[in-house]
């Protein structure tokens, strides 16, 4: 079951951009809602597979803290447009705690900070886009590519740019009709400076936090127990007696 859901999870995550591109080519008239639903389904499937994996508290808590830090950082830099530390924090989380934690950090940060910035139809897209930034960081770290620091910075720039492209694509594909190539390029070109600013800011954040945070997080990981406690869910075989109400 878990394996099926995990395979499904990758499929669903890939489906979001695929449906977006497909809708652009086929000129579907209800693209805005259709792609939004696909993004929502992708998020729900990912969350469900995260639940089914029965993460331990020691996996859950660092994710929550990093998500909250990213959300707080986004609020701190709210006055400066396009300077968002969220992408950088997601990348660190993905590298240190794995791809699934990276996704969760991005999704949590986007969702929670939008209670401050305003929830809207863009929320699922931001959750997905930042989640993917963390997810891919985890994948690349597993493959060993992130041993070279410049690759990390390059990835940070690219991830921030792709974040912008994804969010713009939803607007362009969903809201401009009929869509032409020139029109789409014009729209992407108009947002290029903003995305580039986000990319540069992400690289700057990574330059500052990537190495020290990684070191610190690895140290905390080592301090709080062997790696099995991080990697595998602990299933307590016997049900304990009722000790009163646990934290809700």
């Amino acid at each position, binding site marked *: 079951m878990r394996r099926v859901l995990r395979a499904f999870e990758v499929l669903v995550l890939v489906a979001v951009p695929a449906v977006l591109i497909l809708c652009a080519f086929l000129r579907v008239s209800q693209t805005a809602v259709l792609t939004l639903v696909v993004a929502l389904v992708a998020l729900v499937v990912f*969350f469900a597979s995260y639940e089914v994996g029965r993460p331990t508290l020691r996996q859950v808590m660092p994710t929550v803290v990093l998500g909250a830090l990213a959300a707080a950082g986004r609020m701190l830099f709210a006055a400066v447009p396009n300077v968002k530390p969220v992408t950088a924090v997601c990348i660190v989380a993905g590298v240190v705690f794995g791809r699934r934690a990276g996704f969760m950090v991005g999704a949590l940060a986007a969702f929670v900070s939008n209670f401050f910035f305003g929830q809207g139809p863009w929320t699922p897209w931001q959750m997905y886009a930042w989640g993917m930034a963390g997810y891919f960081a985890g994948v690349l770290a597993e493959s060993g590519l992130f041993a070279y620091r410049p690759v990390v910075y390059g990835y940070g720039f690219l991830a921030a740019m792709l974040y912008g492209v994804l969010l713009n694509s939803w607007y362009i594909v969903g809201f401009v009709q009929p869509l032409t190539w020139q029109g789409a390029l014009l729209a992407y070109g108009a947002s290029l400076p903003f995305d580039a600013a986000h990319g540069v800011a992400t690289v700057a954040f990574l330059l500052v936090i990537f190495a020290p945070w990684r070191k610190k997080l690895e140290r905390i990981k080592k301090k709080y127990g062997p790696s099995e406690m991080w990697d595998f869910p602990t299933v307590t075989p016997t049900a304990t007696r009722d000790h009163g109400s646990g934290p809700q």
Partner: protein
Amino acid sequence: MRPGGAVQQSDGQQAGRPGDGRRPRGAHAFDLVHPAVVLGCFAAILALTMLAIHPVFLALSFSAAFSFSLYARGWRPSLRTLAWQAPLVLLCALVNPLFSGAGSTELFRIASRTVFVEGVAFGACMGLMLAAALLWFSNAALVLTSDKVLGVLGGLLPTVGLMVSMTMRLVPQLVERGRLIESALKAASSARAHTGVEGVAGRVRQVSVLMGWSLEDSLETADAMRARAWGATRRRTTYVRHRFRRFDCAAAAVCLALGAASAVLAWVACVHYRFYPVMGSLGPWWGYLPFALFVSLPLLLCLVDDARWKKVC
């Protein structure tokens, strides 16, 4: 974030009327209905608004959303919203014909691109849709507080629900701790920053301290939660604040019936309506009636509740 009156429903009605400034007007009416029904109703309205790209449907949805906003938030905030939404609609109306050149009725030309009336109309409709969707989002956020949303979704995804509520609690705590660290560093006045670079480095160190502190603290919390039998059973039970009563069943049935009727009629209307190359004709007026009723359900609920309240007083 906190519910204004975290008390029983009947108490909330008395305590919160009518001068209770903490909760938006009309929030009490939604305490009568199970949050799942309210969530479903708002989600259906939002989906229909975004799906039915049809001038009449969009106008109905926008006017219903705006009148609810008028009722719940009052004149001034609603007009302030309108002040930035009107340019948004205008912008969409102007941007669409620039990016897409289709239509039959020429309006004017800008540097080899022809602007058609149909393109402007479609852009205006999309802008109206965006404005209506945003208004519905903010309306839903007024009456569906985060505790209600988490109460509905937390039962389905307990771990993720817990993570969301923990993150929301952590954000203000992090800000508080950041201040604490800052004041501690300031107290060591001989180590204060002399140059700009040192100042930036100090900030970075401050955030790093905050991260390390919070993370270690959270792992202590994790161990404490585990010691209190978190994860001992396959499924944790949760405190259920809202019960699904017979009235909720009836409300859900009404929502479902109206929603389904308006969805079918909206689909028929959208199939028969075209923007390009020439805008089509609008269908009979009764085709819009169920949708008009459906989008005004939230406001109707508030008005009925107000009438009942006046009768009691």
